[in-house]
């Protein structure tokens, strides 16, 4: 089922003010309801190789995989929808390709990338991520961070050594504890949620969130309400004004109408009572 007319997407990536080249990659498919953002790392130009492999392979594999499933089916063993399994598998396969490339090509040695990907289907969404690229959701004018970073800082917050406020002031923000391409296997965090018309979703690299506070991201999304292009441009511009120390990437998606699968929205609502 095409999500054309039900979901609107706008993405933007920018080199920032300090780096010589852009190692982020973004990609999306409105008809499929698929968004992918990756923040590459590694010497020379290998970072952008890693992030480009991630985005292209995930788009391609999920595109092919979605044709094979009936929307809304659940895998009994894992409790995830079939769509979630496809997204997870695509990330695992892209990881293997990046890892093998990094091992076999001397100029790619040590490269890696974060990834965050969102897939919309059947009034639901799946978000999967590795590393510190994030997904936020704006609903009823409130911004919420949906993903939890795989970073040293987040682990220290989780373990109680830092409050989130202290973490924001900490100097070593950029240590990720999970990334694609570093080991043969990677385990993405996968979660599902219900989608409501009017929701706005933001995928972003740390070039945005290291420079712009969550409160201000929320303000920008509220002010640009509905105009995704303006919101994306304003977010990138603000990150640059605040220093632009890293590449900045954002993909915004807004749900315009429900996009239920063949089964009715309400019959599936009744999971229990």
């Amino acid at each position, binding site marked *: 089922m095409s999500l054309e007319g039900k979901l609107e997407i706008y993405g933007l990536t920018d080199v920032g003010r*300090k780096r010589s080249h852009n190692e982020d990659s973004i990609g999306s498919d409105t008809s499929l309801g698929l968004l992918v953002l990756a*923040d590459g*790392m590694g010497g020379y130009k290998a970072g952008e190789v890693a992030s480009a492999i991630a985005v292209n392979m995930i788009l391609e594999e999920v595109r092919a995989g979605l044709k094979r499933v009936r929307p809304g089916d*659940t895998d009994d063993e*894992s*409790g*995830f*929808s079939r769509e*979630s399994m496809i997204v997870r598998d695509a990330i695992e396969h892209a990881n293997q390709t990046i890892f093998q490339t990094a091992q076999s090509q001397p100029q790619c040695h040590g490269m*890696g990338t*974060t990834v965050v990907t969102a897939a919309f289907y059947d009034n*639901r969404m799946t978000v999967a991520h590795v590393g*510190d690229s994030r997904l936020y959701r704006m*609903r*009823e004018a*409130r911004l*919420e961070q*949906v993903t*939890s970073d*795989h970073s*040293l800082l987040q*682990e*220290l917050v*989780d*373990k*109680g*050594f*830092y409050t989130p406020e202290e973490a924001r002031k*900490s*100097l*070593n923000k*950029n*240590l*990720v*504890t*999970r*990334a694609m391409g*570093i*080991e043969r*296997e*990677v*385990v993405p*965090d*996968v*979660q*599902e*949620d*219900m989608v*409501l018309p009017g929701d706005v979703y933001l995928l972003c690299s*740390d070039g945005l969130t290291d420079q712009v506070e969550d409160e201000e991201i929320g303000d920008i999304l509220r002010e640009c309400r509905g105009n995704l292009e303006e919101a994306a441009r304003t977010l990138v511009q603000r990150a640059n004004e605040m220093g632009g*120390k*890293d590449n900045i990437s954002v993909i915004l998606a807004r749900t315009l109408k429900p996009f239920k699968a063949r089964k009715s*929205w*309400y019959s*599936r*609502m*009744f*999971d*229990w*009572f």
Partner: protein
Amino acid sequence: MPGRLVLSLNNSVLGEFDLDRERIHIGRKPENDIQVDNLAVSGQHAAIITILNDSFLEDLDSTNGTFVNGKLIKKHALKHGDVITVGKHELKYLNDEATSDSGDFEKTMIIRPGMASHAAAAAKVEATAPAPATTATSAGGTKEMPLGKVQVLNGRMAGKEMTLTKALVTLGSPGVQVAVITRRPQGYFITHVEGKHPVVNGESIGGQARQLKDNDVIELAGVKMEFFVIT
């Protein structure tokens, strides 16, 4: 370079210790890395976890407590010049080469997967009660998915249970009140979907996702149910 600790009593220096290991124990018993033989100090008093250049102090439920710069702490991220007090002894933390804001640290770096979680999880296991499954880490530094269930407390279905194995479970009556419980690596979250906002422990959760804790009571469309953590 990681930092070091200078142990002193009444301003006379007793020793100096490099924080060159992931975990260093402080206490009265001889098996500690830094032994402080004084009755005011607990057998296992405190631990210091060092990750790259930064060190973190954790009190191990000591009898008389651990203080940093005169303040009682449970967990503390150490800064150059901090003075740790255990009993009457002082340990000064020195690390003038701590992470700087310049150079390479602007670039995203990957630390060995599981390194930080390993250190932190080890602290959890040894220092406190058994670690919950959500903090368990494998070689890949990954979290296990949590497992929980809800049980109905009132009405016709009282006593009925549902284990929350799906990534997303919808609850409620369409057209009246609907909420969704999502399973995330860091726990279960309840979010409002339709109708009135759901109530947890007597309070409306509003529009935000709210993490469910063991024994939380959810009220939705007239049905009360209790959430339990299984693992």
